[in-house]
């Protein structure tokens, strides 16, 4: 029977920062629910509170008001150590700047959460091999971050986040520091994780093409929810609109949607109006 209880829930989340004498409200009464296996993108302009929301959801920071529930457990009722231990077990985080420890190899970076938890190597060796295979870094496991490309470093960071088999994977602008093609590869990886592992993902991005990989997009504006939309539904509507004027483009959109659904997307398309559109092809990762 499929899980129905939300993995992650935010109720009336608010957060303010004091900058000198000025009080700045970053989040103001955010409510959201993330179902098991969902892929939610959080979008909004700079300063809209995207990253702060992610920090609150991951228990990295405390809200000034409201409540975050992970698997029904309220994070605000926990001490710092309890939240840290929960994060260690149930939350995977991927950052824009990878945040790999430079003195450790790929393999050591990936298994770092287990080392922190004091697990024996034989207990996690199998899991480590699997996750390195999944992200395609098995051949690079003994390299240090500085010996890898940006995309490979982000794959290592994703492997580290997936390694703990988290209840939720949080990603903060994971493609923000990567070029277009590499970014697409990383997004494909997220999609694979969702499709193959049923991984629940919350991703902050300001790139609409990145958000296209998500099931649902939460729009933030000045710390409030500006809208929530099903992007696939919107893409289908867009394809229908293009069907008469530009039938070939409408077909491409539909084909891409099918590929997305099947997890076999090899193409990223721009869904803007034809005058500004530009088709770019990327190779799906092996």
């Amino acid at each position: 029977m499929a899980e129905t209880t939300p993995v992650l829930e935010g109720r009336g989340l608010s957060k303010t920062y004091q900058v000198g004498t000025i009080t700045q409200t970053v989040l103001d009464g955010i409510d959201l629910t993330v179902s098991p296996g969902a892929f939610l993108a959080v979008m909004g302009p700079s300063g809209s509170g995207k990253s702060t929301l992610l920090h609150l959801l991951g228990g990295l920071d405390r809200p000034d008001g409201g409540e975050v529930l992970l698997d029904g457990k309220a994070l605000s009722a926990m001490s710092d150590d309890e939240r840290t231990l929960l994060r260690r077990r149930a939350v995977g985080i991927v950052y824009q700047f990878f945040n790999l420890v430079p003195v450790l190899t790929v393999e050591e970076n990936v298994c770092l959460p287990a080392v922190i938890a004091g697990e024996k190597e034989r207990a996690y060796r199998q899991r480590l091999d699997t996750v390195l295979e999944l992200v395609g870094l098995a051949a690079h496991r003994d390299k240090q971050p500085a010996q890898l490309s940006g995309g490979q470093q982000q794959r290592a960071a994703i492997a580290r986040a997936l390694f703990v088999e988290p209840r939720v994977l949080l990603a903060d602008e994971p493609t923000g520091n990567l070029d277009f093609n590499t970014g697409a590869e990383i997004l494909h990886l997220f999609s694979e994780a969702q499709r193959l592992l049923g991984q629940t993902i919350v991703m902050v991005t300001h790139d609409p093409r990145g958000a296209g990989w998500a099931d649902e997009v939460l729009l933030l504006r000045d710390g409030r929810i500006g809208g929530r939309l099903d992007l696939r539904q919107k893409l289908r509507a867009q394809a229908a609109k293009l069907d008469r004027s530009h039938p070939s483009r409408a077909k491409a959109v539909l084909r891409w949607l099918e590929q997305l659904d099947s997890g076999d997307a090899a193409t990223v398309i721009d869904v803007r109006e034809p005058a500004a559109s530009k088709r770019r092809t990327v190779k799906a990762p092996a």
Partner: protein
Amino acid sequence: MRSLDALSYRHLSRRRGRYGLVFAGVAIGVAVVFGVLASSSADTAAVDAAAHGSAGSADAVITTLGTYDARLPAGVLARVEALPHVVAATPSFGFRTAVEPKATQLLHGASFTDFVAVSGTGPQDRQFHDYALVSGRMYRPGVNEVVIPASYARRLGVGVGGTIPLVTPLGVRPVTVTGLLADSGPALSNGGSVAYTSMAAAQALDGRPGDITSVEVKLTPDTSRTAWIPQARRALGDSVSVINASDLASDFKGFLAAINGAFLLASAIAVFVGGFLVFLTFSVSVAERTRVWGTLRALGAVPRQVRRLVVAEAVVLGFAASLAGLVFGCVLAAGSVRLVDHLLYLRPTGLGLPFKDAFISVILAVVVSALAAWLPGRRAAALSPVVAMRDGPPPDGTRVRWWPGLTLLVVGFVVAAARPPQLIGAVAAIMTLAGAVLLVPPLLRPMARFFGSTIRRLAPGTGDIAVMHLVKERSRSSYTLALVMIVLAMIIAVGASNQSLNRSLDQVIDRQAGSGLAIQVSAAQAFDPAVGKALAALPGVRQVTAMEFGRAEIVRPRGTTSVPLQVIEPQSFFAVSGYVWVNGSDAVARAALATGGSILLPDTTAQNLGVKVGQPVSIRTTQGVRPFTLAATYASVGTGYGAVAGTPDLALLGAGRPNVYGVRVGSTADVKPVEARILSELGPRYQPFLSTGASAAAQAHSQVRGFYSIGYVLLGLAGVIGMLGLANTLIVSVLSRTREIGILRSTGLLRRQVRRMVLVEAEILALVASALALPLGAMLAAGIIAGQRSGMGFSVNYQYPWGMLVPVIAVCLALAGLASLLPGRRAARLEPVAALRFD
């Protein structure tokens, strides 16, 4: 990776250059501590061995009061043997004399090893001492035969079967060497210048048959020495001195402990500076790795794991560096032991295997490293994981406050100035230093701007950037500056104490030696009283005064204190010699001593006893404990100063014949001829040692110089650590500004301008550190001088070493320039494009 600790080792190996400097700093600190501890142990062992050599297996020694040629009252041996708990008692007769030199020579500045202690042993002596002969045989009773230490035989150039011409009151007497002793046990007595013979032979040689000078006592095993001694004193009366055998050489041990304490303070400074270097480096290193800490926290590491990671790095570094430091420390210790043994006339016993000292040094290094890294570790652990997601380091939110530093500085200084015990004094010194360190951040900005306004003219444009950096990176600059400041302040403080001591020494010697117009004539044993008249009759001699030296016991409610005793002729003494008065005058002293019942004391002794001028002091005399009035106090520099009494109390204090004559001549031109006449008059009979103000000053200054040279070496090493810290900070500063240097280079800054920018930064740091070190050094010097007063018994008048300032600051600036070379070169070699890409 099995555990998170592996991350510590990786970080250490990743930044080998930077941690290499810290490693060197900690290693030098450990070397200094280990060197001081090991040499202190070796010197103490040498003193203990000498004391043990004298006492053997005796539990207590009954000896004479008063001057060196005093004797024990008749029948004392029988009374001692009759005391309860006495298992065995052996009498002995000892006297101090000299070996006739091969050619008549003028001897200046005698030390006790220039004399020979002749010890005539009683029949039961073998129960107390173990004479280990390396060749020959023991002496026969009643015959002029001696056994002497093998090393002393080498010094005299004599072997088994050879003879020694011994100066005695009856003329020069040849004694035959029948055996050579191994250089241990009894052979260590009197610094190795000792000759053992039978009691009868010794009495005959000194012309005092039947006299004994000491009785050694062995007690039943269950008897408490401390309980038995007061009983023995009561039974034997006050005319003898009863000493616990383990207290032999206690005043010498106290002096040695004070010297070792001073060296330990210097080594504590080296450790403090080393710890500071660890703190500084880890502060920078932790700030650099902000994102790593944030990432670990985000991945589920609890704060204590992060803190442990940082501290583990420091512990590994401290441990490895301390092992390297031990090797260097052995070299330091060996040098220090040789020097101290030479200065204090100790028979060296060698370093041995100082495992305990090595263990203490390693533990100290590890603990100091861990403590120094604790604060940076706490900072790393306290970081919110959210910072991991941010680009760039977190803003420095540290507020700069005046009051904690100022409070610590003032409290530390006030406590140190109040002449507290050594341990509290050391804590007060550390408080003063810590206060000064905390005051640096608020002082840095105005001072850097002040000095920068001059210095930046040397490097137009780049000088302004250097000043800006110093002010902007205030915490890092402040700590480096504090490091250099502490080292400079300590060098200035030790310089001040050295200069003050030398000046006080000059004043005291000049006064006591009669402004260069007096000659002191010392005999190995004692002069016949007729010698005074013979000296007075010599051409060129204006005044002669006799002095008797020995020891006196001051009786206090909580025990007795043995002090040197000098008996003078009040009417003639002040015309030849004198004292630097702390409270008193020649006239007051002359009048008081001439009537009897009064004494003079060194100011430090009076303070330690808690006695003021006009108050009574109880002294053990040949007729029981008597009160003497403290008539005046005088300044002293050294250990040979104690109670001074007048001739009316001569017999009461057990003083016998004079052993020193002070001779005043008419002019300085008379000194040499009078010396020659004294030598020809007294030479064959007494082999006297002559000293003038100049020779006494030279000898004293040489000893002071010797001790201070060890202190300067230790501080010089602390200075090296400070410079390593400066170089380290500059390297880190250049690294963290790589991108900025790229921007400056791309906008037209020349390579030499980059080099100059780093140089200016280093020089401003050194200048501000020097400016702050001047008052801090003055404060610390006051503390050190107070410590010298209470610890070593010196009356030192404070004098600031103005003459040292220019060379010290010049050397500091030169070293700062040197420290900036490598970072400056590295910065200048950066290619703009590569630097701009640097993350």
